[in-house]
């Protein structure tokens, strides 16, 4: 990645868009201003309490008590510091490092949580909040990884939803029948891949518009699984829809880390596969022959063709791979979180994964972070409702999306997807 972003002809790169980059700085500024007004100006008296421990912890951590106003001030200061850093980096025409928005976002989230739960009846179970967010994010991340691969190779993948759903259904049924989780997992991958085959065949071979094929596939898989669910699974749910469930495996030392340990390292095999997947796809895309060829095909298929790379083949197999990965995400829904398939169990996760791909700028790590943000956003409302926050939960649910819209608006024109995504390649 670094080689992609460095360039010796600094003058030309500098000319590419200082104005647009300032927009990012503006977003820091606006969000910081909002944080100041809300967190400090509208601070409520009292404290917010955060529970850090889970029942099975080795060391039982005490509750953390944060005073509302003071925390608001600290967070606002951090936000201001981030904004200043962004301004300075921009002034010197430096690249904005990834940690800056991450620190900024974490600070704002802490501020928001504290603000929202100041004076609430109960303490906020932090591991529960984070763990729940991760659980919601897992299918999104698998879907987003599939999306990144398939868009990078030049095929717009709107069918992520269908791939997730096919994986969820097939995983549940096959695991129920064979009583084997591994077989179920493999079956889910195959199912996701089959959806991809259809997408690939129509999009690559018959040059049908990729978005249309994707939409049709989603509807098809949804209809098919609904139909089979009512007609076949419901009457015979004991044999066909009661798969075994993955149980969490604690990774020795790592799971003992306070707060984050149990959240990240007391998880099922599928989640560990996901960690591996993010790392493997990132390294694969930017550091290996596979990734170089894949990106070349997505950026300039003709150039790839003229150096002897088969455009159709590369697209076909990588879109299939993307489907298999998304299938895993589906399996998580029916083999790990809840051991059974229900009607439309994905409920739009595939589309949110697609949003994460774009918000994450077609980069696996950034897309993963985006998926985590979306997962967190969905989980926030549940948790705040439970602890009895005095702020209306609907308002809180809205905030992360507002932030997202701001962020995406700032990125528009700055991020650029693979040049040939969505365009079929016709030889000659």
């Amino acid at each position, binding site marked *: 990645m670094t*080689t992609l972003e460095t*360039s010796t002809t600094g003058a030309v790169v500098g000319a590419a868009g200082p104005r647009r980059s300032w927009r990012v700085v503006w977003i820091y500024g606006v969000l910081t201003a909002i944080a100041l007004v809300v967190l400090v100006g509208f601070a409520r008296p009292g404290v917010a309490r955060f529970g850090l421990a889970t029942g099975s912890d080795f060391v039982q951590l005490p509750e953390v008590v944060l005073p509302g106003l003071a925390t608001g001030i600290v967070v606002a200061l951090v936000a201001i510091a981030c904004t200043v850093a962004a301004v300075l980096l921009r002034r010197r025409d430096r690249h904005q490092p990834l940690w800056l928005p991450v620190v900024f976002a974490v600070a704002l989230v802490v501020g928001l949580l504290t603000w929202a739960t100041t004076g609430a009846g109960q303490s906020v179970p932090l591991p529960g909040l984070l763990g729940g967010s991760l659980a919601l994010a897992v299918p999104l991340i698998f879907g987003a990884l599939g999306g990144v691969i398939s868009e990078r190779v030049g095929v717009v993948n709107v069918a992520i939803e269908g791939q997730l759903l096919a994986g969820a259904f097939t995983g549940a049924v096959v695991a129920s029948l064979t009583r084997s989780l591994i077989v179920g997992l493999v079956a889910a991958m195959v199912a996701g891949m089959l959806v991809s085959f259809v997408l690939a065949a129509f999009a690559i071979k018959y040059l049908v518009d990729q978005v249309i094929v994707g939409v049709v596939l989603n509807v098809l898989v949804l209809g098919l699984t609904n139909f089979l669910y009512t007609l076949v699974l419901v009457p015979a749910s004991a044999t066909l829809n009661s798969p075994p469930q993955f149980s969490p495996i604690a990774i020795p030392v790592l799971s003992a880390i306070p707060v984050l340990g149990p959240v990240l390292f007391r998880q099922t095999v599928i989640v560990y596969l996901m960690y591996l997947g993010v790392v493997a796809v990132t390294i694969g895309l930017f550091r290996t022959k596979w990734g170089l060829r894949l990106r070349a095909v997505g950026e300039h298929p003709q*150039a790839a*063709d003229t150096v002897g790379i088969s455009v159709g083949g590369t697209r076909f197999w990588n879109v299939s791979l993307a489907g298999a990965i998304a299938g895993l995400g589906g399996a998580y829904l029916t083999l790990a979180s809840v051991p059974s398939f229900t009607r439309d169990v994905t409920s739009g996760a595939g589309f949110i994964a697609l949003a994460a791909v774009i918000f994450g700028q077609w980069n696996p790590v950034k897309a993963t972070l985006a998926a985590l943000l979306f997962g967190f956003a969905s989980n926030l409302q549940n948790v705040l409702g439970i602890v009895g926050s005095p702020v209306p939960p609907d308002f809180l649910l809205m905030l992360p999306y507002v932030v997202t819209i701001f962020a995406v608006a700032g990125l528009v024109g700055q991020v650029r997807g693979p040049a040939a995504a969505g365009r079929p390649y016709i030889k000659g």
Partner: protein
Amino acid sequence: MKLELRGITKRFGALTANDHIDLVVTPGEIHCLLGENGAGKSTLMNVLYGLYQADEGEILLDDEVQHFSGPGDAMRAGIGMVHQHFMLVPVFTVAENVMLGHESTKAGGRLDLDAARARVREISDRFGFDVDPDARIEDLPVGVQQRVEIIKALSRNAGVLVFDEPTAVLTPQETDELIGIMKQLRDSGTAIVFITHKLREVREVADRITVIRLGQVVGEAEPTASNAELASLMVGRAVELTVDKTPARPGADALVLDDVHVYDLNGVPVVDGVSLTVRAGEILAIAGVQGNGQTELTEAIFGLQPQVTGRIVLDGEELTGRTVRQVLDAGAGFVPEDRQHDGLVPEFTIAENLMLDRADGEPFVRLGALRLKDLAAFAQERLRRFDIRAQGIGTRVGRLSGGNQQKVVLARELSRELRLFVAAQPTRGLDVGSIEFVHEQIVATRDAGVPVIVVSTELDEVVALADRIAVMYRGRVVGVVPADTPRDVLGLMMAGEAPQAVAA
């Protein structure tokens, strides 16, 4: 490596693009392929490179018959091609582009970028290129991108190198450098096929010349042959190489540009205070090295630039701030510089492209519906008059040879009542016969009393067409001089030096 093509035939439906073509290129020779637009030169090279499969005939390398099922095979066999439209991934670095397709890897399939960088440096040093392996392609000027293409081919030890119209996009200096490189490659034993429409270049580098017409080899020529001989062999008739025009009889001031500034996305002025006047019935040529604001200036006239200040007035009517539609309706015709991006819709047919700018009313649209019969008749007439070589008016424009695409744009723009005509690089990629024709058309437009602006980086063209010459440098007009200004003075002006006496 010795290359031999025997009886290569390639048909596209009813059209025979290559008809039993024989060609031998020996190592250490630069072999020029000459021919009209649509003669079949690019097709032949695409067959050689495995992009098309020949219907008949065989390809031999060092007397061994080859079977290429794709460019990969051709490349492995030692054939390299420098495409006119570069086959480089813009967001990749030089090293990544060079290694693509034959990557060397370290353990675990990881790319060995250091090896690729070393290879780029080694070849750059050998030929004295100045190419940074870590530069991103999209940040590089065209001339350097072309060198990357050459490095790409050489890094696979190409013994045969094909250059398909490599100079069409280069500045004169870059062309000279490329010619030097080609000679160097030849002397190191590479067999080179060189396609160009510029006869001067042919005579400068060619060791042998083969002329193709209508898909057939019509003969060989000696590099010592005169321009006129080469031209008539190509076109099959005598060609006027100089434009035959009477002195202009300019009328009143028609187009007036007053202190025009154009700013790019970053607010940097690319046209920096240009004031020019074009009179009815005269040709003002804008000369200058590519990228000195000429393109932006013409686009500003047509409302294609977002940030323009100053005044642009045509026949007393303000054009500044108008939409493209309004400018066209005011009677302005425009041949944009990049025909493939701005001038044509490649997926549309010739007929559809010919009516692109008149899609919202008479004579081709009535009550919102296309009048296909009138359109067909009109398109047929244009096809004939502009000698567009195609199977028919239903042919998709993307399938036409480069020169014929350009003719489609011209045919469209010159088919209306005009009050202003602006042509940017009107003959880029055209053969000598077509250039003669286009020049005649431009002069005829002038003689009909239309103010004409011709933007060209070719001094030959500027001198041939202009009634007056404006030279642009870094967004400013260095001076406006009469058409008979000596070339060396123009050359100095193109480098930014003010002329001694600003006449005209």
